C-alpha cells in the first residue's frame, strides 16, 4: 500500500494497469528516501543553483500597471536554464532515475519545453532519453525538436489519436509498461498517477518558497494574490504549495479559454470539464457523455491539455484556490504588452497568467500586491506569434 497519500480528496489515485503498480511503488519509495537524504538534497540544491540558476529574480513591473499604488511582481522562472520552470523538477526526477539505478528516461512533450528540459538533464547526467511528441506538435515546434536532438535525445513522433500531447502521454505510458525495469517515465506535469502529482509539486515548491522570501524582503508582508497559468498545473502548484496554509494569500490559477469557453475550442478543464480519469488520475477532464476524451485547444501548446492535475481539482472544490480563464486574444495582448512595456517576452502560457493579473490590477484597491509566476520565456513562441499577428506589429 502507499506510504504517501495517493489522493487529494477523491482526486488523484492510481488508475493504471496492475503491471505499472510495482514501478510506481518503487518510485514512491525512492522519492521518500531521497527527500530524507541530505546528500540527495545537497546535490539537487547544488544543481538548481549552479546549473539552472536559482534563485530566480523577482521583478517589480515599472510601466505595466497604471495605478502606481498597485504593485505587480513577476517571479522570473523565464530566466531559468532551459527557458522555463520545467527544469526544476526534471533535475529532481533525473536524480531519482539514477538513484533507482535506471539508465533510460521516457518522456512526453507538447510544446517541447518539458522535452527540452528532459534532454538537458539527461545530457548532464548521462541518461538515455527518448521523448514522445505528437507529429502535429513536432511540425509546430520544430526548433524545440532540434534542441532536443542536439542534446542527444531521441524524439519519437506520435501519429495515433490527435497527434498532440495527450497521445504522446499515452505512448510514453505504453513504452514504460514494457520497459520499466531499466527506464524511468519522467512525467512532465503535476498530473498522472500517484506519486507523480506529489513529486512534481515538491520538486517545484521552491518557486513559492523563494517568492515568499523575496516578497517579505521587498515588502515586509505576504502578497495578496499569486497568479499562475494552469495546463496540467505544474508551475501553478509549485507557486501555490508554500502559500496553501496562508489564507490571506489568494491562489489564482488561469486556464486557457482558447477561442472562448462557450466554444468547444478551449482547455479549461476545471472551468468547463467534468470529473473523470485521464492518464492515471481522477480529476476534472474534458469528455463527452460516454466518457470519451475530447480534444483541448489553446494558442499555447503548453496549456493544450484536456485534464488538470488532481490537486488543483481538489483546491478548486474546497474553495482554497480560484480558477479563471483567459482567451487566446487576451493572452496575445498580454504577450505584447509585457514585451513593449517591460522589455520581457513571456511564454504564451505565462501570458495567460499575466493577462488575468493585469485585469486584477486594474480593479485592485490601493496597496494591493500581486505576484505572477512568469513560468517561461517566449522565444519558443516567436514564430507562432509572428504568424498570428503578422503586420499588426508597428514600431
Amino acid at each position, binding site marked *: *500500500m502507499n506510504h504517501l497519500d495517493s489522493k487529494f480528496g477523491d482526486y488523484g*489515485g492510481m488508475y493504471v494497469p496492475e503491471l505499472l503498480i510495482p514501478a510506481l511503488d518503487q518510485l514512491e519509495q525512492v522519492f521518500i528516501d531521497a527527500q530524507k537524504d541530505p546528500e540527495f538534497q545537497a546535490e539537487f540544491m547544488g544543481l538548481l543553483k549552479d546549473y539552472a540558476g536559482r534563485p530566480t529574480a523577482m521583478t517589480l513591473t515599472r510601466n505595466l500597471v497604471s495605478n502606481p499604488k498597485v504593485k505587480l511582481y513577476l517571479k522570473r522562472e523565464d530566466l531559468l536554464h532551459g527557458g522555463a520552470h520545467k527544469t526544476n523538477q526534471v533535475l529532481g526526477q533525473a536524480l531519482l532515475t539514477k538513484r533507482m539505478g535506471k539508465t533510460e528516461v521516457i518522456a512526453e512533450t507538447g510544446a517541447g519545453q518539458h522535452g527540452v528540459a528532459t534532454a538537458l538533464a539527461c545530457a548532464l547526467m548521462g541518461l538515455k532519453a527518448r521523448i514522445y511528441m505528437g507529429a502535429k506538435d513536432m511540425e509546430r515546434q520544430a526548433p524545440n525538436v532540434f534542441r532536443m536532438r542536439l542534446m542527444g535525445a531521441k524524439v519519437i513522433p506520435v501519429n495515433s489519436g490527435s497527434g498532440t500531447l495527450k*497521445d504522446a502521454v499515452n505512448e510514453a*505510458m505504453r513504452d514504460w*509498461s514494457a520497459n520499466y525495469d531499466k527506464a524511468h517515465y519522467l512525467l512532465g506535469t503535476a498530473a498522472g498517477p500517484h506519486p507523480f502529482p506529489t513529486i512534481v509539486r515538491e520538486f517545484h515548491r521552491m518557486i513559492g518558497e523563494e517568492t515568499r522570501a523575496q516578497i517579505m524582503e521587498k515588502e515586509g508582508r505576504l502578497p495578496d494574490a499569486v497568479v499562475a497559468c494552469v495546463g496540467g498545473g505544474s508551475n501553478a502548484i509549485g507557486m501555490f504549495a508554500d502559500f496553501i496554509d496562508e489564507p490571506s494569500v489568494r491562489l489564482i490559477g488561469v486556464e486557457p479559454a482558447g477561442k472562448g469557453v462557450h466554444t468547444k475550442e478551449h482547455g479549461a478543464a476545471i472551468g468547463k470539464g467534468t470529473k473523470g*480519469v485521464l492518464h492515471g488520475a481522477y480529476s476534472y*477532464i474534458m469528455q463527452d457523455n460516454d*466518457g470519451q*476524451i475530447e480534444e483541448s485547444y489553446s494558442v499555447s501548446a503548453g496549456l493544450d491539455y484536456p485534464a488538470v492535475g488532481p490537486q488543483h481539482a481538489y483546491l478548486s472544490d474546497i474553495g482554497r484556490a480560484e480558477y479563471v480563464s483567459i482567451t487566446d486574444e487576451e493572452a496575445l495582448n498580454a504577450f505584447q504588452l509585457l514585451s513593449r512595456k517591460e522589455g520581457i517576452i513571456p511564454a504564451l502560457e505565462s501570458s495567460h497568467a499575466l493577462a488575468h493579473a493585469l485585469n486584477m490590477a486594474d480593479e485592485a484597491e490601493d496597496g494591493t500586491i500581486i505576484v505572477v509566476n512568469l513560468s517561461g520565456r517566449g522565444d519558443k513562441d516567436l514564430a507562432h506569434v509572428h504568424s498570428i499577428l503578422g503586420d499588426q506589429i508597428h514600431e
Partner: protein
Amino acid sequence: MSNSADRYGDMFEQLDAKNEGAFVPFVMVGDPDIQTSVNIIKALVAGGADALELGFPYSDPIADGPTIQQASIRALSNKIKTDDCFEIIRQVREAHADIPIGLLLYSNLVLKRGIEKFYQDAVNAGVDSILIADVPLREADRFIAIAKQTGIKQILIAPPNASDETFAEIGQKSQGYTYLLGRAGVTGAETAVSIPASELIDKLTQYKVAPPLLGFGISTPVQVADAIKSGAAGAISGSATVNIIAENLSQPEVMLEKLKSFVTNMKSATYK
C-alpha cells in the same frame, strides 16, 4: 435484475470433463460498425470460441498496442456509443444463451456512466464479467462492491511482476477467471507471449486465484497449446483476431470466414 448464472464456472466444468482448455477471442465491440460487429462476434462463436472477451471503444487506451487502438478508432469514427455496444451484446446474448461474455474496457467509460448504472446495463445486456484495464487492485474495491451487488464477476489481472501480496489479494477477490498477463507491455501480436514458468502457475494455484487465462501476445495455435501445457486454464487472443478484421474490411464475407477458421484452429490447440 442481477445475474445469477455462473457461465464461467459451467464452462470450466464442461471443459474439464472434455479434457480441454478454453480458447477466448477478443474483439472490439462496434468495430467497424454495428451490424458487422454482431456478425463478427457470431462468427467467433460459430468457430468454436468457449467464451468471448469484448472491448468497448475508448479514445485513450493506454494498455493497448496499435492493432486494438485502431479498432477503437474505427468504431469511434463510426460514432459507436456505449449504448450501441450494449445493444450489440444484447443481440449476441439473444442468439447464444450459454457462452460467457466478458467486457474489457477502461475506467472512464464506467465512471462517466456511473459504476452502478454501467454494471446494471451490462447485466441487462447479458454480460458475465468486467475487466477494467486501468483499475488495479488498489482502486478496485468500489467496482468489486457493485459487481457483487449486480452479479457481475470482476476480473482481475495477474501480471508477471506482481508481489506475493498482490497474488494473495487476487486470490481473495478474483471471480470468474484471472487474466494472466503473459508479458510486460501493451496488447499486440508483434511481441510474443512468454509462456509463464511453472512457478508462476504454482503461485496462482497456491493463492487459489480463479482459473487463469493467459493473454497478451497470443497469436498462434502453438502458443495456445503451450499456455495450456504450462497449466493455464486457457488462452485469450486479441490482436491476432482484430488483425483479421483490419485486413479484410472491404470484404466482410471473407473476413467472417477467416475469423471462423482462425478460431477453429486456435480452439483445436486446446485439446489436452
